[in-house]
């Protein structure tokens, strides 16, 4: 069992250089067996949250519970938690076998034979059976990563914590290990909290993603929901690669007009969307469109197109990423391989109203996704998802 509750958890660093709020009033529930990924830019508080859960950082305010029991003041060893660090943190003076067995020796009453059996079994499962008598210094990065994961698995804890465990691996190995971690989780179904700044890692691994920024929870939800219905401008910008196109617009009747130096385009919206937008009571918006939702607009109705000059064409094999300049703003278009315009060429593109995300320019909160109303403020979204759990 390993259901986790963060109840108004706050972390404040107070030193001679000033006060920094690393995590602010985090409310979040994680179900037993769930794979939750904390994602966000550097300094967003994701690692601090993980370390507070592990007991490696004190909690300034609030309570953390595992299976309903408050663990906020418990020592790390009494929390039934195993953690994989970015640097692996293997004991360099111990063999792989001893590294894996150490936690069991210290924290359980198991016999040496039983410990050895579990270590061997786990090592076989991780594909490191032949490395058991080697020291970490003689292993490659990928092997060390496997040992670190094996060391956590062999403990059979209530909760696994991963703090950017794949960041030190090369791209190919990272993808491979990602798949392995997903398989291990499917097999063991132990509650896992995983911290990464890599949104692709977050999307592929998570049952739910929790997006953090500036110590505040921005949104929590299944990957598809976070991608398709970002709660605010930050989430929309952070999730997705290449990132979403954003253009500052002003509502003018049934037109969203570009706020640029040239004011040379506007986008005509339907009555339904205009109504939602009017209800929000704001006139200044950011319109967001994902590059993959943009398409060539030669046959699109007038008033629904954007004309831009091709600045860069990136050929990535499966697609072409085309960067357009329109009204002083950059517009990214993920095009099929056959669309490969020359630099300087003028291209007309369009996007469906269903794919538009509108954000209040002041607060950054989502107002509408396509023709449906957004779920409310980001806080409301995160709390409602938490409450459903």
């Amino acid at each position, binding site marked *: 069992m390993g259901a986790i509750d963060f109840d108004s958890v706050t972390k404040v660093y107070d*030193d001679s250089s000033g006060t920094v709020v690393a995590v602010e009033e985090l409310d979040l529930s994680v179900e037993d067996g769930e794979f939750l990924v904390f994602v966000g830019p550097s300094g967003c508080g994701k690692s601090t949250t993980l370390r507070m859960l*592990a*007991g*490696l950082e004190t909690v300034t305010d609030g309570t953390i519970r595992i299976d309903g029991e408050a663990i906020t003041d418990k*020592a*790390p*060893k009494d929390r039934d*938690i*195993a*953690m994989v*660090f*970015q*640097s*692996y*943190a*293997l*004991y*360099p*003076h111990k063999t792989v076998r001893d590294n894996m067995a*150490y*936690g069991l*020796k*210290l*924290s359980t009453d198991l016999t040496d034979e039983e410990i050895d059996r579990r270590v061997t079994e786990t090592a076989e499962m991780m594909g490191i059976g032949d490395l058991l008598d080697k020291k970490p210094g003689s292993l490659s990065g990928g092997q060390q990563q496997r040992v670190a994961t094996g060391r956590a698995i062999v403990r059979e804890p209530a909760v696994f914590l991963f703090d950017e465990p794949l960041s030190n691996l090369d791209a190919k190995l990272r993808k491979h290990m990602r798949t392995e971690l997903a398989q291990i989780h499917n097999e063991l179904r132990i509650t896992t909290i995983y911290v990464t700044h890599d949104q692709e890692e977050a999307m592929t691994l998570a049952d739910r993603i929790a997006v953090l920024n500036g110590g505040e929870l921005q949104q929590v939800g299944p990957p598809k929901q976070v991608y398709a219905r970002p709660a605010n401008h930050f989430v929309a910008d952070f999730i997705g690669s290449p990132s979403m196109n954003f253009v500052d617009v002003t509502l003018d009747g049934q037109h969203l007009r570009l706020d640029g130096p040239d004011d040379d385009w506007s986008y005509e919206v339907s009555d339904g969307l205009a109504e939602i937008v009017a209800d929000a009571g704001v006139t200044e918006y950011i319109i967001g469109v994902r590059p993959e939702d943009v398409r060539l607009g030669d046959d699109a109705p007038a008033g629904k197109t954007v004309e831009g000059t091709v600045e860069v064409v990136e050929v990535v094999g499966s697609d072409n990423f085309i960067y357009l300049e329109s009204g002083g703003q950059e517009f990214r278009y993920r095009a099929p391989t056959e669309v490969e315009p020359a630099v300087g060429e003028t291209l007309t593109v369009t996007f469906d109203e269903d794919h538009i995300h509108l954000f209040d320019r002041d607060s950054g909160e989502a107002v509408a996704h396509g023709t449906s109303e957004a779920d409310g403020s980001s806080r409301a979204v995160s709390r409602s998802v938490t409450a459903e759990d």
Partner: protein
Amino acid sequence: MLNDTRRTRTLLYLGLGAIALWALLPYLWVLRTSFLDSFTAIDPNAPYLPSLDNFTLKSYGQVWSRFDFVTFFTNSIIVSLGATVISLAFAIPSAYAFARLDFPGRKLLFYTAVFTIMFPWIVLTIPVYEVFTWLNMINTLEAVIIALSIFTLPQAIWLLQGFFRQGIPENIEEAALLDGHSELTAFLRVVLPLSLPAVAAAGLFSFIIAWNNFLWVFILTTDKSQRTATVAIHYILGSDVMRQWNVLMASAVLLIVPPVIFYTLAQRYVGEGIGGGY
């Protein structure tokens, strides 16, 4: 091209050889003189490498038979080991605290400790003498041990805190905490074994400083029975009885032997310790 490289390398080795010879010459001269008979040792016409007939081990025998070098060396060993152990016993926890813990006045305390490394000991002789007189400890080996451990402590702290800060990743300690250790046992069972190279380096430096120390032994002891070998040689050199350079050099060679043995035993670790990694 190949010849150029070879020529450069030859010149480099010749240069290095010359510098090494220059540095080693005094030691070689001490070694040479210690093995000569009394007359050849002071004969200005003696060649740099005298004939084998003039070489003898007599001077080494005289060191032990004519002077109480057994006592002097025993005192040196007691004082040096005592100072090293006490210095490390205090340096290890304090260096760890400076490296890892955040407490008020940490920087001030640390820089004060480091500053004392640069402080010339000679200006402290009178206050230190007064303190030990007040403690009624003058003329005891304990006084010398305490004085030496205090004066070797800052350097040991400085060396060890650098290692704790850079040589032992914090994550390893954190992994130990999650594996079932308390903070104290994580330090004793995980950090300390990993820090052996640095502890060996700090211990070696403390031992050498204490072994070679002249000032505190000279200031704090007057009894012959409390002298260490370093001070004893000074008295022998200053006495009228002794102008036998071969015997003096033999005692100097004997003085060098223990630190060399100590270094040889510790050198496997020391390089790593100074390097700051494991």
